[in-house]
């Protein structure tokens, strides 16, 4: 019966390993000291307060928010029809489509960032923000397609046929029957895409320009200059924001069923 002790023990150690850094970051956010340290030196809200005074954070937060929301929406707009086509139609070349759409998972982000910089931004004058938007959309696309495909697979296709026979148009059937039933999947894809985009570093590494910087790159830049706990504070704030959103989603939509 050793397994009965072994399993929780493994799980405990793994969770400690995974969550340890998280705890340290959260603790450091409330530190009174000048550097990251654990246990934190004293208790204060000064670093949390400082986050709101750094102007570049505000700007890059806006950029990241735009990319995460816009990119995820764009990825869903492209991804939902693609997932639908692959699950509901006899599609010659479906494998090619699947491959194309999943490329962003297999191609390292840093390469994509560089390629876009070199061939879109510089020669064609594509604005950096647009390049970032395209890159983030492409990056989220595989997740959008995968999660939506999964929820479509759980939805019997004869439901749409039933709707059509009852008088709905194809689009009507999609809107009235398919969409309401994959809502959770779409929300899951949205959250997954949002988090992926928001925390994305490698793709954005090369894609920064005057006034255009994503938040993680800005944080990285900030850490290169000032090594104080305000980054920890900012990260904690963002983490709690994300956790809050996920919990709300879970509460109202049972989001975890779809991941």
């Amino acid at each position, binding site marked *: 019966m050793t397994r009965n002790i072994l399993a929780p023990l493994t799980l405990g150690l793994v969770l400690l390993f995974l969550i340890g850094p998280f705890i340290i970051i959260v603790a450091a956010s409330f530190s009174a000291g*000048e*550097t*990251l*340290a654990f246990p934190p030196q004293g208790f204060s809200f000064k670093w949390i307060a400082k986050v709101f*005074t*750094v*102007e*570049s954070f505000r700007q890059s937060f806006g950029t990241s928010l735009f990319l995460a929301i816009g990119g995820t929406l764009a990825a869903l707009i492209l991804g939902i029809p693609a997932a639908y086509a692959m699950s509901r139609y006899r599609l010659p070349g479906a494998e090619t489509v699947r491959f194309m759409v999943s490329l962003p998972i297999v191609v390292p982000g840093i390469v994509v960032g560089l390629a876009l*910089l*070199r*061939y*879109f931004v*510089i*020669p*064609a*004058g*594509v*604005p950096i*923000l*647009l390049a970032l*938007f*395209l890159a983030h959309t492409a990056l989220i696309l595989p997740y959008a397609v995968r999660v939506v495909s999964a929820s479509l697979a759980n939805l019997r296709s004869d439901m749409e046929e039933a709707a059509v026979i009852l008088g709905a148009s194809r689009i009507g059937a999609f809107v009235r029957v398919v969409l309401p039933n994959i809502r959770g999947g779409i929300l899951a894809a949205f959250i997954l895409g949002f988090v992926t985009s928001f925390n994305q570093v490698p793709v954005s590494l090369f894609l*920064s*320009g*005057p*006034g255009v910087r994503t938040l993680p790159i800005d944080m990285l*830049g*900030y*850490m*290169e*200059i*000032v*090594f104080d706990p305000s980054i920890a504070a900012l990260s904690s704030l963002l983490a709690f924001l994300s956790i809050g959103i996920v919990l709300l989603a879970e509460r109202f939509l049972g989001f975890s069923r779809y991941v």
Partner: protein
Amino acid sequence: MKWHTVLSSAMALTLGVGGAAQAQEKTLTISVYAFAQDEYNQILYKPFEEKCGCKLVVETGNSVERLAKMEANKAAPVVDMAVISTTDALQASRAGLIDTIDTSKLSNYGKLYDIAKDPNGDGKSVGYTFYATSIVYRTDKMKITSWADLLKPEYASHVAWPNITTNQGPPALFMLGTALGQTAPDLKAPIAAIADKKDDIVTFYVKSSQLVQLMQQEEIWAAPIGRFSWAPFAKLDLPLGWATPKEGQTGGMNVMVLTKGGKNRDLALQFMDYWLSTEVQTKIAEAMIDSPANAEVKVSDAVANNITYGEDTAKNLKLIPAAVALDNRDAWLAEWNAKVGQ
């Protein structure tokens, strides 16, 4: 390449990226070092924006990275003016990325130390600050009287050394060479000395800010740094000192340059002139960010002790001439990669 343009403009349209709204206001795009942006914002950017009724767009990063970007954007320059190291300015000059500066439009030009007026002698750069590079160290753990002390067996495993690609790298190696009695510009001797201790040395740092954390964690006891990074160390609750090695201190100068083909030439010159003014240079010095290059700046002793102040100090720094640094840069990197890199 046409489809690129079509695609991008189509995308821009759908995105509603309005170029029109921006164009109404005069915009000056500058490229600067990333540190102390909040202070610069208060002392320099905001007042300038009010003065000129224009908008400043700021790109930040280290000198080399930003130079690489300028080179990439050569055909369609993004930034109007940049501040970089003298070596990078010389490289930019040779690569045809920057223009001659019309100093007659800089009312404060005459107030500068002579060494700051045209450091590369090509009329394409103006110094706005200089700094000493020496060693920050734990006075309770070690005694530093020479650059070579850092490689002592009992010290080496507590040292962070600047990577060759940083601005501090070559000067520090040059001083180490001097301490070893080898002053050849190929830096082979000091690189070999570092290579001997490469496993002991904690890290070859790229960003000096990290050193504050490492110092705090007692990961390191000493590191060669530029004086401009000194302030955060001073805030630590540790016995830290600024070494005055017998070989002297080295250092560097940062300069302003104008991008060739930059759209807002007059505005850029106005900005440069404002930055060089006694008022702004004094405030920046008092904030312990940059040492002044303007001779009229007077600061208190407390401030002077924490920055690199005065023309005499500047003259005594053992600097590597920009041309030497530039001509040897590739060879140094190759030598470093071959000996230390692996």
